[in-house]
C-alpha cells in the first residue's frame, strides 16, 4: 500500500501545483499575484460592469444591394446586345425574414429576342435563376446557395467592420462576435467591459451606417409632399427621396430626389481622412478602390455639372456639384465641424456596414452594481462555506477534515479550469458552482455514511473504508453522469447564461470525482497506513 500511496500523493501534488499555477501563475510579489489573479479569473460583464449589445444584421439590405448592382449591369449588357426592355425593377422587402424573397422583375422583352436574353442570363448571371412569367416578362432570383453565402459573408463583414470601429476607441478587451445560430439569425454580440453607458459606442457603431454616393435628380424641396407634388404625387421610377441632415441653420428641411441605385457604396472606399479646404472649412478626403474608382470616373465624366449626394443610412450628409471627372479620390465638403469631419472619415475608413443593423438587446451594468454583487456573493459564499465546514467537522470529526480538504481542492480545480479554458465567470456560472459544492458535499456524505454503515455492521476499519468507497462509487458515477448528460443538452440547445451554467457545472463535476473519491481516499489510506488492526475510526 505504501507504494500505491506514494503514486497517489504524487498525482495529487502535481494537480494542485498545476492548478495553482493556472490561477496565479508565477507571482514575484503581492501585486503580481493580484494582477495574475485578475487576468486569469475573468469576470463576466454582470459581475464587473460593462455593456452588452445584441444587434441584428439587416441582411435583406445586402441582398437588395446585390440586386441593384445586377440590375445596373443587366441594363448595360442588354444595351450592348441591343435587346430592348420595358422595365427592370425589384421588390423591396423590409424584414430580415424576407431576405430570400428579393426578386428582380424584367418586363417587356420582345418575343423575338428571347433566346438572346436567355443566353445572356445563363452565361453572365450564373448566380441567379431566371423564371419566365409569360412570353415577355421574367423574374430573377438569387440561387439559394448564393443567398446563404452572401448572408454569411454580410454578417462576417459586419463583424469585421464593427470591430474596426470599436477598436478605434481604445477600450480594453472589447469583443464582437457572432451570436445565436449562424444560419438564420444574423445576430452579433458586442461586449464592452467597463463601459457603463454605451451611447458613444452605439453612435460609432452607428445606426447610421450604410454609406452611398447617389446621383441627385432634383431638389431641394421643403418637404416630402412638395417633392411628390412635382410628379403628380407619385415617386418617379427608380428614384428615392432623402432628407438632408439638419445643420442647425435656419434653412429648414431639405429633401432631394435621388437615383435609386448608388453610384458607389461604402464597399468601394479605401481610405478617408479629415481635412480643411482653402477657406478653412471642414471636409473629408477619400480614396476609392480600383474598381470603384473606374466606375466613379465613368459616371462623373458623363455627369459633369450634375450633383451628387453623400448618403449615410438614408440621410444626406452633403450635396456637391461634379466639377470634373473624379477618378479615385475626392472630397466631401460642407461639413459642420471638425468632429463631424473626423467621424465621417472614420466611417469611411472602416468601411461602411454592408447592411443596416437593429438593436435587439442592450444591457449595461454599472461598475458599482458589479462590485456589490461580488462583495455580497463573496460574503454569502464565505458564510455558506464556513457553515458547511463547521457542520462537517462536528458531525464527521476527523473524517470531516477529508471532506473539507476535498471541498477546498474542488474549488481550486474549478478556478484553475476556468483560467485554463479562458472561460468567464458569470452569475449563472456561480449557480453552477453552488450546485457543484452541493454535489461535492453530497459525495463525501455518501461515502462517510456508507463507511459508518459498514462499521455498524461489524466490519474492521480498513475493510469498512474499502467497502464504503466501493459501494458509494457507483452511486456517485450515476449522479454525476446524469447531471453531465443534462449539461450536454443545456450546452447544445441553450444560449448565453444557460451555457455558462452548463460549462461550470461540468468542470465542477469532473473535479469532484477527483477530489471526493481519489483525494479523500488517499487521505484515508494515509491515515490507516500500517495500522491494519486499528479498532476505531474517527468518522
Amino acid at each position, binding site marked *: 500500500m505504501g507504494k500505491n500511496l506514494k503514486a497517489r500523493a504524487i498525482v495529487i501534488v502535481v494537480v494542485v501545483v498545476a492548478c495553482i499555477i493556472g490561477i496565479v501563475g508565477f507571482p514575484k510579489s503581492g501585486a503580481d499575484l493580484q494582477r495574475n489573479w485578475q487576468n486569469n479569473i475573468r469576470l463576466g460583464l454582470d459581475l464587473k460592469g460593462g455593456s452588452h449589445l445584441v444587434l441584428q444584421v439587416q441582411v435583406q439590405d445586402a441582398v437588395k444591394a446585390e440586386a441593384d448592382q445586377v440590375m445596373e449591369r443587366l441594363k448595360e449588357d442588354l444595351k450592348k446586345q441591343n435587346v430592348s426592355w420595358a422595365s427592370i425593377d425589384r421588390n423591396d422587402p423590409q424584414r430580415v425574414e424576407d431576405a430570400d424573397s428579393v426578386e428582380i422583375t424584367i418586363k417587356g422583352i420582345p418575343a423575338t429576342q428571347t433566346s438572346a436574353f436567355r443566353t445572356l442570363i445563363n452565361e453572365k448571371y450564373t448566380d441567379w435563376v431566371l423564371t419566365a412569367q409569360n412570353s415577355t416578362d421574367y423574374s430573377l432570383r438569387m440561387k439559394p446557395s448564393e443567398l446563404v453565402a452572401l448572408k454569411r459573408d454580410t454578417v462576417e463583414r459586419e463583424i469585421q467592420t464593427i470591430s474596426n470601429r470599436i477598436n478605434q476607441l481604445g477600450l480594453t478587451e472589447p469583443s464582437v462576435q457572432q451570436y445565436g445560430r449562424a444560419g438564420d439569425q444574423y445576430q452579433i454580440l458586442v461586449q464592452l467591459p467597463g463601459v457603463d453607458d454605451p451611447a458613444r459606442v452605439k453612435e460609432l457603431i452607428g445606426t447610421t451606417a450604410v454609406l452611398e454616393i447617389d446621383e441627385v435628380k432634383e431638389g431641394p424641396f421643403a418637404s416630402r409632399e412638395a417633392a411628390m407634388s412635382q410628379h403628380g404625387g407619385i415617386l418617379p421610377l427608380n428614384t428615392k427621396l432623402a432628407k438632408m441632415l439638419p445643420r442647425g441653420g435656419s434653412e429648414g428641411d431639405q429633401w432631394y430626389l435621388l437615383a435609386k441605385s448608388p453610384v458607389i457604396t461604402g464597399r468601394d472606399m479605401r481610405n478617408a481622412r479629415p481635412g480643411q479646404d482653402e477657406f478653412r472649412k471642414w471636409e473629408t478626403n477619400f480614396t476609392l478602390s480600383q474598381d470603384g474608382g473606374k466606375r466613379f470616373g465613368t459616371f462623373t465624366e458623363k455627369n459633369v455639372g450634375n450633383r451628387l449626394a453623400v448618403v449615410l443610412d438614408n440621410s444626406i450628409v452633403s450635396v456637391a456639384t461634379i466639377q470634373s471627372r473624379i477618378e479615385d479620390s475626392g472630397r466631401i465638403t460642407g461639413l459642420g465641424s471638425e468632429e463631424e469631419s473626423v467621424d465621417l472619415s472614420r466611417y469611411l475608413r472602416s468601411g461602411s456596414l454592408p447592411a443596416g443593423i437593429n438593436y435587439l*438587446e442592450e444591457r449595461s451594468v454599472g461598475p458599482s452594481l458589479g462590485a456589490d454583487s461580488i462583495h455580497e456573493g463573496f*460574503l454569502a459564499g464565505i458564510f*455558506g462555506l464556513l457553515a458547511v465546514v463547521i457542520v462537517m467537522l462536528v458531525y464527521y470529526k476527523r473524517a470531516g477534515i477529508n471532506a473539507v480538504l476535498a471541498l477546498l481542492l474542488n474549488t481550486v480545480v474549478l478556478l484553475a479550469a476556468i483560467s485554463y479554458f479562458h472561460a468567464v465567470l458569470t452569475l*449563472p456560472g456561480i449557480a453552477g458552482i453552488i450546485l457543484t459544492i*452541493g454535489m461535492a458535499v453530497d459525495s463525501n456524505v455518501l461515502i462517510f455514511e456508507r463507511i459508518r454503515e459498514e462499521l455498524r455492521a461489524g466490519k474492521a476499519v480498513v475493510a469498512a473504508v474499502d467497502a464504503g468507497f466501493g459501494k458509494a462509487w457507483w452511486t456517485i458515477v450515476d449522479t454525476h453522469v446524469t447531471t453531465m448528460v443534462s449539461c450536454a443538452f443545456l450546452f447544445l440547445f441553450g444560449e*448565453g447564461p444557460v451555457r455558462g*451554467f452548463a460549462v461550470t457545472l461540468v468542470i465542477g463535476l469532473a473535479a469532484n470525482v477527483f477530489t471526493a473519491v481519489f483525494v479523500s481516499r488517499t487521505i484515508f489510506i494515509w491515515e490507516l497506513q500500517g495500522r491494519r488492526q486499528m479498532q476505531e475510526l474517527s468518522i
Partner: protein
Amino acid sequence: MQLFKNTDFDFLGKKWPFIIASLVLTVAGLASIAMKGGLKYGIDFKGGAQMTVKFATPPPIDKIRSALSQKIKGDISVQNFQGSNEVIIGTELEEERQLNINRQAMADVLTTTFGQPGSGKLDFNNASKDELAARLRDPLAKAGVPMNEQQLQKLVEDLQNFRNTPPRSGLITDFNQASSVPGVTPAILNVIRQECYLSPFNIRNVEMVGPRVGAELRNKAVLATLYALAGMLVYIAFRFEWIYGLGAVIACFHDTIITIGLFSLFNKEISMTVIAALLTLVGYSMNDTIVIFDRIRENLKFMRRESLETVMNKAVNQTLSRTIMTSGLTFLTVIALFIWGGPVLHGFSFALVCGIIVGTYSSVFVASPIVLVWHNYADRHKKRAPSPPPAAAATSRKKAPGSPPAASPTKAVK
C-alpha cells in the same frame, strides 16, 4: 455523532397522503399561475427597458412615477427594492427602435427631477471616467495642480473606484468623503467641488431587451431544459428501468412547477438568473432521487424475497442520514445566499431555497412511489392474466411477502 441510527419509518406505506399533497400543491401552483394570467416574466423574457437606480435617501416613488409618465408612453412600473434605497423602473417596449429613446428619456427625467441640470456642473455620481477626466483636465491645470495625462487618468480611476466600491456603492453624499482617496489633495478636492455636483442617485444598471428577443430567449431556455430532462430520462432508463427514469423526471417537473407556482404566488419575476436556479434545482433533485434509486437497486440484489415496498422503504431509511445531511448543508449555503446575497441574487436564491425543500421531498415521496405504484399495477395485471388473483391483493401492502415483483427489477441490475 449521529442523527439517525437504523431508522425504520414506513415512508412508502403512507404514500397516498403525500401523493395527494403533491398533486394539490402542483395544481395550486398551476392555478395561481392561471389566475394571474400567466407568469410574471422579467424583462429578459418579455422585453422592455429596466433601470436600477440607487438613491441616497428613501426614494420618492410617486414623484419618480409621475415625472416619468409625462415623458414616456405606456406602462411604467416603479418598484422599491425590499426596504433598500434602490428602485427598479420598468417601461414597456413595443419595438426595438424604442431602445435608445427610452433609455435617454429615463436618464433625462431623473436628472431634471433630482439633479442640478441648470448649474452647468457635472454630476459626479453618474459621470463616466472619460467625462470626469475631460471635465477636470483644464480646471486642474488652471488651479495650478501639476498633473500629466497619466496621473490624471489614475486620479479619475481612483476616484471612481472609491465611489463604486461598497459601502458607497456608486453614491457619495459629500465631497469630503473623497479626501480619503490616495492622491486627493485639498486643492484637487476644491477643483472637483467647483466642477461637479452630487446628485442623490446613481444609475446602476440598465437593461433593454427587444420583445422578439425576449420570446426567443424564453423558448430556448424552456426547450434546452426539456431536452436535458429527456436526456436524463434516457440515461436513467438505461442504468435502471424506464419507469425509474420516468419517476425521476416527473419528480423534477413536480419541483419546478411548485417552485414557479411559489414565484407566481409571491409575485416574483422569472428572469434569466431564476432559470439558472431552476436548472440547479432540477440537477439537485435528480441527484437526490438517483441516490435513493441506487440504493434500491443494490438492495434488490440480496432482498429478492421481499416486496418492492419493503426494499424501497429500507433504501429510503438507509439513505435518510445522507439525505438530511446533504440537504441540510446545501440549504445552509443557499440560505446564506438568500440572506446576504443582495438584490441581484434574490430571485435566484429564493428559487433555490424553495427548490431544495421541494426537491428533497420529491425524491422520497414522489419519485419512489411512482415506481412502486407502477410495479404494483404491472404486478396485478400480470397475475390477473394467467390465473385470477386473490381478492386480498387489492393493496400492495397486503401482498404475500414471498412474491417478488413481477416485472422483476433485478434484470436491470448491472
